[in-house]
Every structure is written in structure tokens, then in C-alpha cells.
């Protein structure tokens, strides 16, 4: 008998330094759990997230990618997240157009005070991606171990 290993999705979360990263901090200090499979990458602003980052995350083995930033209107740099929103809207729509599961990508606005929202979002997203299974459509076989 072989052990059936439970599938644990790898998730990359791009978090803006001023809101969402602080939100993750708050989740931690409030002892609110979120899956250990969520790997956070801190970015100065959600606007720093280049579409290439999202694709690169999938290439290196992510099963889901989420971008989190300040709420619209609350950007530390006034308007960065507005631009990021347009970019991600178009990019995710394109991924969908190519037949790549829409649920593998997500954008959420999480403030520094929303530790609970951070934890809830990550739990939800991890569950969604786990249900989808491994990322096959945007994988790079060379990067598989």
C-alpha cells in the first residue's frame, strides 16, 4: 500500500509593504492562523507587481498567486493600487482567455488593521486552490523536482 499524500498547494502572496504585509503581521501577532503554504513576498506597493512576477511564480511551482494591497483610495503612494488594479484585471482576464483556471489568481485589498481578513482570505484562497489541484496549465516542467 502506498500512502496517498495529501495535496498541499503552494501559494505565492505578493503583499504591499504598507497595508497587506502589516495585515499579515497583525494576523500573526493576533495568533490568527493561515496556511503555511502561503509564501509572502513583500513589495513596496501593489503597483510594483509586474505581470511577469505572476507568471514567474507559476513557473517556479506556485499553484495559486494572490496580490494584496491597500484598499483603493488608501495607497501609501496615492494611486499605485489603482494602476495595479487595471493591470491585474487585464492580466487575469487574459489568463482566463488562455484557459488557465481563473481561481488560481486573486486580488484582495487588505489594510494594516485587517489581520482577520488576511487570515480569512488566505485560508479561503488556499482551500480554493487545493480544490483545483496542481497547476498544470502554466507549469514549467524544468522546475519540477
Amino acid at each position, binding site marked *: 500500500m502506498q500512502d496517498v499524500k495529501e495535496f498541499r498547494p503552494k501559494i505565492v502572496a505578493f503583499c504591499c509593504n504598507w497595508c497587506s504585509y502589516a495585515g499579515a503581521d497583525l494576523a500573526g501577532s493576533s495568533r490568527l492562523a493561515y496556511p503555511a503554504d502561503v509564501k509572502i513576498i513583500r513589495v513596496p506597493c501593489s503597483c510594483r507587481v509586474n505581470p511577469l512576477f505572476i507568471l514567474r511564480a507559476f513557473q517556479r511551482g506556485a499553484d495559486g498567486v494572490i496580490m494584496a494591497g491597500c484598499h483603493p483610495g488608501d495607497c501609501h503612494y496615492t494611486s499605485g493600487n489603482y494602476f495595479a488594479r487595471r493591470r491585474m484585471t487585464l492580466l487575469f482576464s487574459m489568463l482566463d482567455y488562455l484557459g488557465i483556471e481563473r481561481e488560481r489568481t486573486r486580488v484582495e485589498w487588505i489594510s494594516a488593521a485587517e489581520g482577520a481578513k488576511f487570515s480569512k482570505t488566505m485560508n479561503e484562497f488556499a482551500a480554493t486552490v487545493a480544490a483545483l489541484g496542481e497547476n498544470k496549465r502554466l507549469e514549467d516542467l524544468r*522546475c519540477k523536482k
Partner: protein
Amino acid sequence: MKKLSSAKLNEFFAAIAASRALYLPVDNSRGKAEYKKWEAGVEMSRALNTVRSAKDFFFPQTENLMEFKMEGKKVEVVDTRSEAEDFVIFGVRACDAASFKILDSVYLTDPVDSYYKTRREHGVVVTLACGKPAETCFCGVFGIDAANPEGDVTAWETEGGLMLRANTEKGEALLEATAALLEEGDEAAVQAAQAKTREILKKLPLSDLSTEGLGVGKTAELFDRPEWKTLSEACLGCGTCTFVCPTCQCYDVRDFDTGNGIKRFRCWDSCMYSDFTLMAHGNSRNSQVERFRQRFMHKLVYYPDRSGGTFGCVGCGRCLSRCPISMNIVKVMKTMGGKN
């Protein structure tokens, strides 16, 4: 000479495919021919030639060379090669068959490229004489006979079926293995097919293209000609001509960081690209004029210089039909060679 009746064509393919991989031109979703692995139900394309050349079989666009695994300060080098597959390519045209000799002269002379050599040894080439060459064809200019291609086995389409002639030991073995499906063929049918093709070849618009003024020893004469500038003026610097070319043989070796090791691979490179000759000191060819000149000088002068006069072009015409701006080797030959 053997004959295979049309009715038995699929049986013939099945017989070959039973023991090894069989590749042949198949129409893709856009109606263009590309080499595909044969399996029951796959129909051979009627197109004159494939978009990509047959060089892919021996010199694939991308190929892993080796891997490095690192643990602490220890580096392990892994040869990732697996057992090479035996394969047959069916339906190669005379131009592509001739291109193999050019690739051989590069890859099988010292230092021998073992990756290429293995594939060559495992592959059997069945060529198919052209019945209806196109206006972009000019293989005859380089002494290639579209009606009598080389290869391990040569095939001709005649009424009622294919005529097959083995040219090498490998070819004879292939025909022997399928002998149950073959009958004795008639030389006259082949000659009739050849005569028909040669009649068309004579009428093709590029049949009178000349290599005069090109070839061995012309470097000094041609290198500084002012026409290179005008010819290359519109060149986009893309790699289409080099990637569809059956004789272009340049590659780049690169390392890919997988996140858990390094894969060293090689991939086709193009002298038309801006980073082609990029070295530590910089780049020795900084303008498209120089890159453009390199490509055509290589095919028409440098290669002949090194190969005893054989040109580095086989006249397949792919660059003529594929170049985005329709600048091609024929236009270069007309401008640089001949009576100009």
C-alpha cells in the same frame, strides 16, 4: 527498385511504426504541413514541403545537454541523455536531404557533436521526389536534383503507388523489413515521373538563378560592397529565415536556473539577433548590416570556402515565403553575384 501500391501505404506505415517511431508531414490546423509521429488514422500531407525543415530531427530547436546539482559546495554533473529512439522520417524532400550533408560537415567533423551523431545514427531518411515544385524553389542552382533526392531510401510518386529505391544499408534493411508489402518495381515508371518533374523545374522562374560571382574566394570582393546597406535596410532582425532554414546550424548554450538546480541547454541561435556575437567585451557586430551580411556571406562565401565549393544553401525557398519583409537569399544573390 521496389513498388508499393497506394492501397498498401497505410499498412507500410504501420509496419514501420511497429518497430520504431515514424515521422511524416501532416497538415496542421492551419493547413500547413509539419512533421508528426504517425499513428493509425494519420494522413500524409499533400503539401510540397513542411514549414519547418527536417533538420529538427537531428538538430532540435532546444536540447538539454546536462544538469548540475548542487549540495553545499559539491557540484554533481548529470548526463541527462536517455536511450536514443530509432526513427524513420518519411517524405523528406531533396533540398532537406541535401541539408543533412551540410549539417554533417559541421557536426560530424572533429570535434564530433555526440548529440547530433547519435540522432543521425538512429534515424533513417526516406526521401520523396518532388512532383510539383513551387516558384520559390531553386535547389537546382546548387546542383540538387528534386527528381532524384538522396537519403537512405528514395521514393517516387507514380500512378498506382510509390516506387522505392534503397540507397544505403540502412535503407535496404528498411525495405527488407517491409518486403512482404512490396513488389518488384519498374524503372521506367520512375523515369517518367522524373521527366515530368524536370520539365516543370526548367520552367520555374528561379531556374536561371546564377551563382556566378559568389562562392570560393570572394570574401575580399564582396565584403565591403555598398549594396549590403540597401539590402539590409528593411531587415527586422527577427530569426525567421534562420529558424526555418534547413542549413542554419548556429546554436547558443545557456544555463537555466530551475530553482533546484541548473539545466544546461542549447537552442537555435540566429545571426540576425542583436546578441548573437555578444561576448564579455561587448559585441563585434553592432548593426543589422553586419548581421545581415554575415548570414549571406556564410551561406554563399564562407561555407563554400571551407567545404570545397559546396554552397551553404539548398534552395528550399522557405526564407522566400516566410520572411516578413520578403528579403531573401535570392535577392542577395541577384544583387551581389551574376553580372552586376
